[in-house]
């Protein structure tokens, strides 16, 4: 079928990519799970049957999983399932914010460094190195100490430590692409450096970056959970999954469900992102088919 | 007959059900002679050579009525037996030494490795034989070159190293897949001279795969012309001008000639019928 316009060509291309992706059952599973996460977050008010922040200390404290409370209740008498459902909003927020902050920054810095070379490259890469040198949790601690604890600061801390590897990746891709004849051709046509970077190089560096970010998501969720565990992320009574595990730590031997619920949720979502990322890599890797 | 190929078919089944047929029924036999296989990209010439060696890409489906070397059925052979043949009795030279030599091993070490895979020799003797093989291909300064890495030598020398490595075990059949296409014109002649001498002195059978019809005609005894996975014509190289198939004639005509300028150049009009020749 001959495409008759730019639109048709783009749509045909996306369709082919989707078909290639969908052939991978595991990747499709990952995608479904993430879609489920998004749906849960969106429909939280209607899905959660109990109040996530307020519980009855007298009657519903530390109840085992049952017909009414599918995942049991925690030490504050709150239904764990409802908390997980509301907490999915926080997880999704963290994931999206970090991706939106860190990925474009890394892409911009990396492609600029790779394309211009010289002192621009040196400057940007040393800047990258500085941020790369900080372990996430330590930086989060520092930010929490400086700005106070809270989910926004946690997100900022994670994003600030997440972008350097993306910059490195984008730079590596750009260095290889820079030599290509098609870049020389568009330079010869009189394109400015910014035009070449934005319209010709970045679209090519994007696929591997997307894969990398997706695979990173699992780690980001775990880091956020870790921060929550340390009390630096979302503050009580916010139902952030990591904080929930921390809360359940004291009861893990007798009332295992308090920590197991959020633990399983984190595991499933991290796994889903990993599967999705692997599937994306098989489809988006330009060396593969084209 | 050293090599017997009858109705060789190489196909690649795709995930969506289609099947890409690279070789569609090629037959020939080879004694101690030089056979050239000529075709353009997509003709299946390289796939034929690789199928004989057992080096087809993953996912290849290889069938034939007969595919035998020295009476042994290559299709029925298990991988262990195939590997024993490869390098010691059946060898292959590839196009670009940049990609076919191990970039992180010294040249001498790579040649020795090939030798010791197939022959029981002491370290001392292996080294002596390796140096001798380098000298055989015209590399006088063998000791020095043996210590170099592949990226430190020129294309022509790299190809000679490849020839040395592939012939050190004195194979009976050599398949050369575009051995000089990546080289400069003057270097091509040098490498071909080395190949010519080796094949002559050792009485090797040679299958020379190339897109260059004239080159193959000047080097080989017989030529197979391949198009779309099939052999469309077989010629003695001395009788190139008597070629009858329109594809062969087209190939001969469409090359620009220094002494006979033609404007415009005659071009090939591909006929659907050629696919079913």
């Amino acid at each position: 079928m001959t495409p008759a316009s730019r639109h048709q060509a783009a749509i045909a291309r996306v369709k082919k990519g989707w078909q290639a992706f969908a052939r991978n059952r595991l990747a499709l599973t990952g995608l479904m799970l993430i879609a489920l996460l998004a749906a849960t977050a969106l429909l939280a008010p209607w899905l959660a049957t109990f109040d996530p922040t307020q519980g009855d200390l007298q009657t519903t404290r530390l109840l085992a999983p049952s017909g009414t409370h599918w995942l049991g209740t925690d030490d504050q008498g709150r239904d764990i399932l409802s908390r997980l459902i509301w907490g999915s909003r926080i997880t999704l927020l963290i994931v999206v914010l970090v991706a939106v902050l860190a990925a474009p920054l890394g892409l911009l810095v990396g492609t600029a460094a790779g394309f211009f070379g010289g002192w621009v490259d040196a400057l940007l890469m040393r800047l990258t190195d500085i941020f790369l040198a900080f372990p996430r949790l330590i930086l989060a601690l520092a930010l929490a100490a400086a700005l106070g604890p809270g989910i926004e600061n946690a997100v900022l801390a994670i994003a600030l430590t997440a972008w350097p590897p993306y910059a490195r990746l984008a730079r590596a891709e750009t260095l290889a692409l820079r030599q290509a004849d098609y870049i020389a051709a568009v330079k010869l046509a009189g394109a400015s450096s910014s035009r070449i970077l934005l319209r010709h190089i970045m679209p090519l560096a994007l696929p591997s970056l997307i894969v990398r970010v997706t695979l990173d998501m699992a780690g980001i969720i775990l880091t956020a959970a870790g921060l929550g565990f340390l009390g630096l992320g979302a503050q009580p009574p916010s139902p952030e999954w990591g904080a929930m595990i921390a809360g359940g730590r004291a009861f893990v031997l007798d009332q295992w469900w308090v920590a197991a619920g959020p633990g399983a949720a984190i595991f499933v979502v991290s796994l889903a992102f990993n599967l999705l990322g692997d599937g994306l890599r098989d489809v988006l890797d330009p060396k593969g088919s084209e | 007959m050293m090599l017997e190929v009858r109705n060789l078919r190489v196909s690649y089944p795709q995930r969506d059900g289609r099947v890409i047929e690279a070789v569609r029924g090629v037959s020939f036999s080879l004694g101690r002679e030089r056979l050239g296989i000529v075709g353009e990209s997509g003709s299946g010439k390289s796939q034929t050579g690789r199928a004989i060696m057992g080096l087809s890409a993953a996912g290849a489906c290889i069938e034939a009525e007969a595919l035998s070397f020295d009476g042994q059925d290559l299709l029925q052979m298990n991988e262990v037996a195939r590997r024993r043949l490869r390098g010691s009795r059946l060898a292959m030279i590839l196009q670009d030494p940049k990609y076919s030599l191990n970039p992180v091993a010294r040249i001498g070490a790579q040649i020795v490795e090939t030798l010791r895979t197939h022959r029981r020799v002491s370290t001392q003797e292996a080294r002596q034989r390796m140096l001798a093989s380098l000298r055989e291909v015209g590399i006088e300064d063998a000791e020095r070159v043996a210590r170099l890495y592949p990226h430190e030598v020129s294309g022509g020398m790299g190809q000679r190293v490849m020839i040395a490595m592939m012939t050190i075990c004195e194979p009976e059949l050599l398949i050369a897949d575009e051995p000089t296409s990546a080289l400069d014109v003057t270097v091509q002649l040098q490498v071909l001279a080395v190949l010519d001498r080796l094949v002559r002195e050792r009485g090797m059978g040679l299958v020379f795969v190339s897109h260059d019809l004239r080159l193959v005609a000047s080097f080989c005894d017989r030529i197979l012309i391949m198009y779309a996975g099939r052999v469309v014509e077989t010629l003695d190289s001395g009788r190139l001008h008597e070629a009858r198939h329109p594809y062969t004639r087209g190939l001969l005509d469409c090359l620009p000639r220094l002494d006979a300028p033609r404007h415009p150049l005659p071009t090939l009009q591909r006929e659907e019928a050629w696919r079913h020749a």
Partner: protein
Amino acid sequence: MLEVKGLRVRFGDFTAVHALDLTVGEGQSLGLVGESGSGKSTVLRAICGLLKPAAGAVRIGGDAALPLSRRVQMVFQDPYGSLHPRQTIDRMLGEPLAIHGIGDADRRVREMLDAVALGQAFRYRYPHELSGGQRQRVAIARALMLQPQLLLLDEPTSALDASVQAEVLNLLDSLRRERGLSYLMVSHDLAVVTHLCERVMVMRQGREVETVSASQLAAAQVGQDYTRALMVAAEGFRREA
């Protein structure tokens, strides 16, 4: 159309081109022949500005008011590497027009696809859907979008099959005659170069060996031994009986 004097190109310590002079008249074509390492491709890149020469002057004719990109363009060697893998043919041909704010892009792209004998069906396809010969036609079309008078050709057919090469050579030939273009063409193949060019300069290790006319080459009236060696090599292998 093109005047080069004393061109010197260096890569660090290594001098790729030593003090080269050459000229190409209007509507004329010059071939650069040599083996790898002769510096011939480097000369092309230095002329169009992709490489900065260490010394020498390059003067390109045509309307001096026009920017360089509208006076000289290049066709690259590798059809598999000279087209952006994620852009449609339409986008690639329209890009030079967009950069210079030239309107009427739709008509121009359509006409150029016809001029290089690629049907309109190819307009919205991606490079990986095209064969080597088709990609090279796109490369030629792209080079001509800005209507330059001088075209630099870097081994435009060496990666193509013989039959496809003939078609592309014919196309280049007719385009030159129709549009009065000047060509500076690099090749390692003497026959290909003499097909398109009236004059041929033989290069070796960054220097000119000699410049002859195509007819002189055809009649083997050459001065230098190196040129003779190249011609002999081009004839092919001679088997010892």
